[in-house]
C-alpha cells in the first residue's frame, strides 16, 4: 500500500458480511466500511471486497480462502464466521482446527487479519453452545494475535441502551434495525482501522501490523 497508495480489504464471512436483512447490497457492512474509510482516508484508494456467502461454514470459507482472499492481495482480511458452527455444534476441537487453518493461510500470505465476534442475540437460550463457541473464537484468535472486533458487545450495549424503547426495538421493521446495525458496525471498524493506520506511520500511513 505504501507504494501504491491503495488499501484493499477483503471481508469474508456468511450472512452478516453478505448483507443479510439489509434493504440493498450497498447497505451491507463492507459497503459502508468502504464508504467510511474513503471519507477518513481521502489520500488512499480504499477498496473493500465483499466475499460474504450466506449460510457458509468456517470450513467452506477456508476452502475458498486462497481464491477469494489471498489472490485479491489485500492488506487486511476481516473474517466473520462461527455462527453456523455454534448453531450446529460441530465440536469445539474441530472448529479450532478449522479456524487455525484459515488464520495460518492468511497470515502465511503476509496479510493481517481481523476476526469478528458473534452477533448478539436477544434470546441466547435458543442455542445452548453459543457462549462456548464465542469463547473459542476469541481464544483461537488470541493465539495468533488476531484482533477480534467486539461486535457482540457493541450490539448488546446498543440494544440494551435506553436509547431505544422496547417498542422501537421489537416493533421496528427488521431491515431497518439490521441496516442501522451494519452502519454502526462498519463505522466502528472504520474508526479502528483509520486510527491504527494514521497513528502507526509518521504522516504516511503504515500498513503491516497497523490493525493490531
Amino acid at each position: 500500500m505504501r507504494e501504491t497508495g491503495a488499501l484493499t480489504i477483503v471481508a469474508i464471512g456468511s450472512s452478516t458480511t453478505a448483507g443479510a436483512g439489509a434493504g440493498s447490497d450497498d447497505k451491507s457492512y463492507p459497503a459502508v466500511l468502504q464508504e467510511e474509510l474513503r471519507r477518513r482516508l481521502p489520500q488512499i484508494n480504499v477498496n473493500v471486497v465483499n466475499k460474504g456467502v450466506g449460510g457458509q461454514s468456517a470450513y467452506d470459507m477456508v476452502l475458498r480462502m486462497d481464491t477469494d482472499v489471498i489472490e485479491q492481495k489485500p492488506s487486511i482480511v476481516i473474517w466473520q464466521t462461527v455462527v453456523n458452527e455454534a448453531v450446529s455444534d460441530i465440536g469445539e476441537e474441530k472448529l479450532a482446527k478449522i479456524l487455525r487453518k484459515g488464520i495460518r493461510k492468511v497470515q502465511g500470505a503476509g496479510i493481517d487479519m481481523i476476526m469478528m465476534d458473534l452477533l448478539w442475540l436477544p434470546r441466547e437460550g435458543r442455542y445452548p453452545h453459543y457462549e462456548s463457541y464465542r469463547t473459542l473464537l476469541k481464544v483461537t484468535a488470541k493465539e495468533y494475535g488476531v484482533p477480534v472486533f467486539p461486535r457482540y458487545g457493541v450490539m448488546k450495549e446498543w440494544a440494551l441502551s435506553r436509547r431505544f424503547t422496547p417498542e422501537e426495538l421489537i416493533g421496528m421493521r427488521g431491515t431497518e434495525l439490521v441496516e442501522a446495525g451494519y452502519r454502526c458496525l462498519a463505522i466502528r471498524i472504520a474508526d479502528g482501522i483509520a486510527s491504527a493506520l494514521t497513528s502507526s506511520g509518521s504522516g504516511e500511513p503504515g500498513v503491516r501490523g497497523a490493525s493490531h
Partner: protein
Amino acid sequence: MTPPFSILHFLLLGRGPGQGPVEVQRDARIDVIRGLALLIIFINHMPGNVLAGYTPHNFGFSDAADVFVLLAGVSATLAFGGIVEKRGLAIAGLRIGARLWTLYIAHIAMFIIVCGVVAAAVTRTQNPVYVEAINIQPFFSDTFSALVDALLLRYQPSYLDILPLYIVLLAGFPLIYCAARRSPALTLVASIALWQGAVGLGLNLPNAHAAGWFFNPFAWQVIFTCGVVLGLGVQRGVSVPRLWWLDAVALGYVLLSLVAKVSSGNPLGLAVLNDWFDSVQLGTDKTNLAWSRLMHVLALAWLAMRWLPAGGALLRPAIGRGLAAVGRHALDVFCAGTVLSILGQIVLAETGFALLPQLLYSLAGVTLLVGLGMFLTWYQSITLSGAREMRVSAQQASPSPR
C-alpha cells in the same frame, strides 16, 4: 456368477451375457437404501440435532447425498434406459422432459414454501440466525431479483440445492446413457476427465450469491455416471462377480474412513498420513466432490451389491417395507422432508435444543415421511387398479370394430 471376462466385455463394450437388455425386476435394495437416505437427509438438515451426530456422515467420508445421487443414476437408467431401448430416444426424451418439468415445479414450490416459513419465523421471533441458517437473505434484501434468480436456478438457498443438481443431471442423462451403451469404461473416463478438468479450471454453474452451485454439477455428474453404468449392468443382466480382493479393498477403505472420522489425530501413527488424517477430519470438499467421497460411496455400493440380499428379502421386515415405500416416492418425500427439516430448525431453536423436543420432532417427522410413502404407495395402487378396470370396462362397453 459371471467370469471376469464378461465384466470386461461389459465395461468396454456395454454388452451383457445375453442379447440386449433383459427384463429387470424392481430391486428392493435400491428402494430401501434410497428411503433410508431420504430419512437421513431429513435428520441431517436440522443442524445441531442430537440424532445428526449418529448419521452416516459421522462415520465415513460420503453422506446421504452421495448415495442419493448414485441411486438417481441407477434408477434413471432402469426407468428411462428401458424406454430408450423399447421406444427409442425421442420418446424417452419426451418422458425425461416431462420429469424435468415436474422436478422444476417441485423445486420452485419448495422454494416459495421455505421462504414463507422462514420469513414468518424471522418476523415473529426476531431471531436473525434463521436468516443465516438457510441463506435466505437475498430473498429479503432484493426479492425481485432473488425471484428471477431462483427461477433460473442461480439462487439456491441452503438445502434447496439438491433438486437443481438432479435436474441438470437428468437433463444430461440421454447423453450419458447413449455413451455408456457404447462403452461404459470410456464414459467413466470421460466423466472423470470432465470432473477433474472442471475442478482444475474452476468451472461451475453460475450462482448469484456465491462462486457457483453448492453441488457443482460438473463434479457430481461423476457419481451419477457411475450410477448409470451400474444401472446399465443390471439392465444387461451382468451379475456381480465374486471378487474377494475387491471386497477386501472396499471394506478396508470403509473401515479406514470410519477410523479417520471417529478418532482425532492420526490413529495409525504413520507419519506420512498425518496431513491426510488432519484434512479429512476437518471436512471433505462437497462442492467439487473430494476423491475420498467418491471412493467411499463406490466402496459402499460395491459392498451393498455383494452382500445385501437381492430380491424381496429386505422387504420381509416391516421396517424394510416402510423404507421401500419412502424410496419409491423419493421426490414427494424429499420435498416434504426438506420443508419439515427447515420447520424443525425453528422448532429446535425455539425449544432451546432440549433433548425431548428434538427426539419428538425427529420421530414425528420420520413417521410423517414414512406415512407419506406408504400412503402414496396405497394411493398409486388404487388409482392404477382403478385405471385398469376403467380400461377393461371401456373395452367391454364399446365392441371393437372387428
